[in-house]
């Protein structure tokens, strides 16, 4: 089956005063129809830049984006417009992505209007109800809503054209825990109900685990490990994935005391000055001579793909069993 979305060697270089910064560096990735893929990593890993390129808010420097068999890399904004039906994005900050002077109805209908289509009132009201708001909210303004409700408006707008792929860029990270769970559940329910594919971008690996079936871990513009959720969380093979999981505080004091943590040295490196060889080697507890010179390629190891010369094969436990 052809994938819904295919990235080949996707690259983005930003030119800054301090020189060229390669934010995304030759990314290969496939997303199947109806699939949820989590794109995780720390700041500067290129996950958001990737998301923006997918929906063509940013133009790639090199590489190819294929959507539903069609090369959309060089498509003009005009031609892209008809693709917007199928390809939508949800942003992190619900308020800054909603025009404060427009009513909810006008905001939600915008993607349809942009294509010269009609957006009947009852359809917009249906969308509002689908995302857990009320039909009566249609004539209100964004400031009348809480953060969680505003994010629901953003979701309704993304879904009104019945897209097949939605890029969700940190959709719950600005929300309080109790609200975050509401929105994460909503996104999961809508995915099942509408048979959507998500590229779910997040720094929070716990949220991703509850929403995504497949996970890609990024470090400095590249994928270092990609595989099914249970494989990535249950037996991560890249030392970075292990360190990342082991750094996350668990809401369980006994487990926190008992667990052994891998504490990485230093900060994530700057994409403006990437280390030679494996980008992770300066912080890696397994780094050897080869890692400093030779960049590892993504290779199939025990049911996932991992870019590491010395992948971890030993059992992995987040915390010892109680």
């Amino acid at each position: 089956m052809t994938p819904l979305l295919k990235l080949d060697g996707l690259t983005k270089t930003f030119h800054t005063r301090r020189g060229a910064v390669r934010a995304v560096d030759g990314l290969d990735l496939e997303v199947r129809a109806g699939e949820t893929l989590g794109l995780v990593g720390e700041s500067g890993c290129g996950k958001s830049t990737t998301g923006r390129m997918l929906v063509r808010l940013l133009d790639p420097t090199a590489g190819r984006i294929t959507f539903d068999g069609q090369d959309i890399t060089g498509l003009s904004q005009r031609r892209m417009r008809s693709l917007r039906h199928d390809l939508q994005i949800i942003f992190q900050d619900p308020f800054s992505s909603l025009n404060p002077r427009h009513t909810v109805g006008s905001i939600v209908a915008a993607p349809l209007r942009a294509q010269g289509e009609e957006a009947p009132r009852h359809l917009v009201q249906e969308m509002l109800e689908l995302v857990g708001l009320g039909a009566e909210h249609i004539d209100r303004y964004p400031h009348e809503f809480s953060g969680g409700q505003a994010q629901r408006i953003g979701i309704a707008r993304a879904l009104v054209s019945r897209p097949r792929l939605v890029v969700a860029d940190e959709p719950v990270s600005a929300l309080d825990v109790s609200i975050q769970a509401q929105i994460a559940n909503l996104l999961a329910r809508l995915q099942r109900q509408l048979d959507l594919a998500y590229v779910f971008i997040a720094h929070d690996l716990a949220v991703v685990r509850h929403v995504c079936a497949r996970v890609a871990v990024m470090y400095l513009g590249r994928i270092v490990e990609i595989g099914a959720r249970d494989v990535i969380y249950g037996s991560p093979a890249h030392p970075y994935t292990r360190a990342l999981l082991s750094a996350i505080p668990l809401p369980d004091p006994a487990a926190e005391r008992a667990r052994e943590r891998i504490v990485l040295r230093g900060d994530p490196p700057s994409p403006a000055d990437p280390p030679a060889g494996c980008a992770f080697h300066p912080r890696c507890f397994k780094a050897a001579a080869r890692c400093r010179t030779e960049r590892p390629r993504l290779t199939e190891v025990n049911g996932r793909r991992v870019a590491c010369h010395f992948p971890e094969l030993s059992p992995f436990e987040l915390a010892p069993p109680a």
Partner: protein
Amino acid sequence: MSLLTVRDLTVEFTGPKGTARAVDGLSFTVDEGRTLGIVGESGSGKSVTSLAIMGLHDRARVTGSIDVAGTEVVGAGREEIRALRGRRVAMIFQDPLSSLHPHYRVGEQIAEARRLHFGASRRAAHKHAVQLLADVGIPDPGERAGDYPHQFSGGMRQRVMIAMALACEPDLLIADEPTTALDVTVQAQILELIATIQRERGLAVLMITHDLGVVARVADDVLVMYAGRAVERADVDALFAEPRHPYTRGLLGSLPRLTGPAGELTPIAGTPPSPLTPAAGCPFHPRCPDRIATCETVRPDLEGTSHQAACHLTATKKVTP
């Protein structure tokens, strides 16, 4: 011995839309060498509380009592508070740039407090600053002391701020979301640093956070806040093992986790309350799955001895915790 005693603290802000009670009758203590985690969502009053302890509310109406190592903060004069702030209590924030001056070398900024409060000579204060930078894990501290804040990464800046906080050997360190803006691998480093410093210097720490994982990692005791009030207080193990307040249970249920079932989460219904329009009775009752008629009219107080909850149901044992 308790180093910080807060009694019946209330903080109110008055604006064009009316008066908002951000903190409402809050009481707690922090003992020497212990870490109290204050956890709550936005608007719960946790940060307002920490600023009140630092005497940083100019425009708010603050009542009640805040005793820091024998000195009363509420109603104290400017000079008294300044002396306290430098010497007994130090605070680190989520954003280190907001408390570091962009135009001064970090070494000078750390040394300044030492000269001010200890009357140290320029040379001695500088030497001390370099030592502190080494203590908090800054490589090449002698050289880095001459750098400006923007020359440090986020994690290193947080270390600089911790060094500055330690300059006057405080007894109490208030950390307000110190790792929220940091990447998780850097967060782990900073939490470890705070724990080490506390162990070595016997500090009392007030850790203010929205993250129950951070609380589980660093706190000895936990205070859960909702709508300006304490709704539960317990030692960290008891709080996570048998949460007694429906809000605490709701928070724990809504947390996405790295282990256990990966399916649907159990969110708390509704939205957090506005301090401008507080609910009558228990502030949590509009969102509470277990509420009874009493909850709508009578405001519950913290009940219990070592493990306390402000809930009519827990108090009357109608719900087994």
